[in-house]
């Protein structure tokens, strides 16, 4: 498979610390690609660099053959790269349906511009129907009228996923979607992510190794700002350098 996304020699430093020190990463279309690494390896920085929240000091980012290194975050979303956040980022004082609809409305190529000032958005039925579908997809259809600030943490994470999906990304960046979840909620989220396999390109950053090795098609390991291994879960699990980086105690 040809890569839909490629990072080439990506570098970014904060003071004396190289959070990205020549990262090379390829994500193939349709795969679920997991990014793991010990704490402080630079995973979050890498997600920021890919989504456009941070600019690299040097190196290039290619998406679908085009150079996106200098594009703003919203321009990257328009090209098809959407991220979810580690810390829940929903709109607490809007209902679930309004949250999802805002995500759908963001898709200019399908629904046109948001610079419409007169027509009530509540009369945009195709938009609303699609928002309802996305809520259904993550199991939140019944709570469409509830304020997002009033649902549980796990449900907010599911809403967050629905919103990211509603932008119809060509590559979805999931930054620790299981963070802070109980076992039951984790299982629900893992199943949701599993349900994306085959239809959605995903770059997943996750600490839970069981989930990573259960779900991922390929795994890349980031250590001290560099990818030290990239391959099928089995190869990575037995990789000498990886085992050393994790001191053998975290890998299942």
């Amino acid at each position, binding site marked *: 498979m040809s890569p839909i996304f490629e990072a080439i020699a990506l570098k970014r430093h904060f003071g004396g610390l190289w959070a990205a020190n020549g990262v090379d990463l390829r994500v193939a279309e349709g795969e679920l690609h997991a990014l793991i690494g010990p704490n402080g390896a630079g995973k979050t920085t890498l997600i920021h660099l890919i*989504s456009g929240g941070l600019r690299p000091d040097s190196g290039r980012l290619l998406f679908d053959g085009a150079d996106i290194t200098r594009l703003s*975050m*919203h321009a990257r*979303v*328009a090209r098809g790269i*959407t*991220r979810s*956040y580690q810390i829940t*980022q*929903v*709109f*607490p*004082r*809007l209902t679930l349906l*309004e949250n999802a*609809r*805002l*995500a759908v*409305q*963001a*898709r*200019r190529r399908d629904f046109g*511009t*948001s*610079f*419409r*000032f*007169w*027509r*009530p*958005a*509540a009369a*945009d039925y195709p938009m609303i129907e699609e928002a309802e579908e996305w809520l259904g997809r993550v199991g939140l259809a019944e709570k469409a009228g509830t304020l997002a600030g009033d649902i549980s943490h796990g449900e907010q994470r599911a809403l967050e996923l629905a*919103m990211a999906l509603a*932008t119809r990304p060509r590559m979805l960046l999931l930054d620790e979607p299981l963070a802070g979840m109980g076992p039951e909620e984790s299982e629900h989220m893992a199943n949701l992510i599993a349900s994306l396999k085959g239809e959605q390109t995903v770059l997943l950053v996750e600490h839970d190794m069981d989930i990573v090795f259960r779900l991922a098609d390929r795994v890349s390991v980031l250590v001290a700002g560099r990818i030290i291994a990239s391959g099928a879960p089995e190869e990575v699990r037995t990789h000498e350098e990886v085992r050393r980086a994790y001191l053998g105690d975290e890998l299942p």
Partner: protein
Amino acid sequence: MKASRRESSLEMVLLGAALFLPFALQAIGEDYYIGLATRMLIFALAATSLNFIVGYGGMVAFGHAAFFGIGAYVVALLMEQGIASAWIAWPLALVTATLAALAIGAVSLRTRGVYFIMITLAFAQMIYYIVISLKFAGGDDGLPLAQRSALVPFDLASDTVLYCVSLALLAASLLALKRLAASRYGHALAGLRQNEMRMEALGYPVRRLKLVCFAAGAALASLAGALFANQNGMASPAQLYWTQSGMLLVMVILGGVGKRYGGVLGAVALLGIEEILARITEHSHFYVGIALLAVVLFAPQGLAGLFGLRARTR
């Protein structure tokens, strides 16, 4: 649904009463109050335009006087050149203020919070000092209007007509605000107020959304400024000064930030209190200050919140 219909009918009653007011005042020979009522309408329009930026757009701008003053000065300067037609001067005021807002906004919107407050204040003060240094703009003395704008077929020389025109513009703005809040753009603004970063991550052009809001508020303010120059008989530097920005902000806070009627209630209350207090005491500002303190402490949603008017912003 029911609540919104009740609100609409209340609006119609209020509009009817407002239309009836100048004729009633004339009938009882209290023409003076038509002037006061007109001033309230004009400042209601200006405060509403600022409330759009502060309450709907979530940007605390402290330089709104710049756009209000630009409206007044464009009308006065054109009048000097012999162009009295409102159909030329008012749209030109609108365009000038919009361009100024786009330029100021393009720079200021790179900042947030306190920095945004300071930078908008700085720009407004810059415009103030430029204008008072211009000989042809009248310097410190301002620029008197030889006559009121000519708004054919209406005769603005009549106080009642000026009142009605101000009322019509205010009513139109409030209706537009209602439609806008429920539109796609209004929803995008609601998202921005709650979480700007998330909106960017969803793919919204955040800065452009905010810039349009800022410029639209400025344009509306310039219209209020054009009206005020007409009522006041001149464009004066006081309309550009930071205290004017402060007064508009006080009106918004007093009336209710982000409430559709916040600007109106704030303007009517503040000018009303000042009018009454000015007769009783020389220290009216002191009592206005206390009133503002009371609102901030006990009714953080402003007078609009106190009256239980439906919240639009969340």
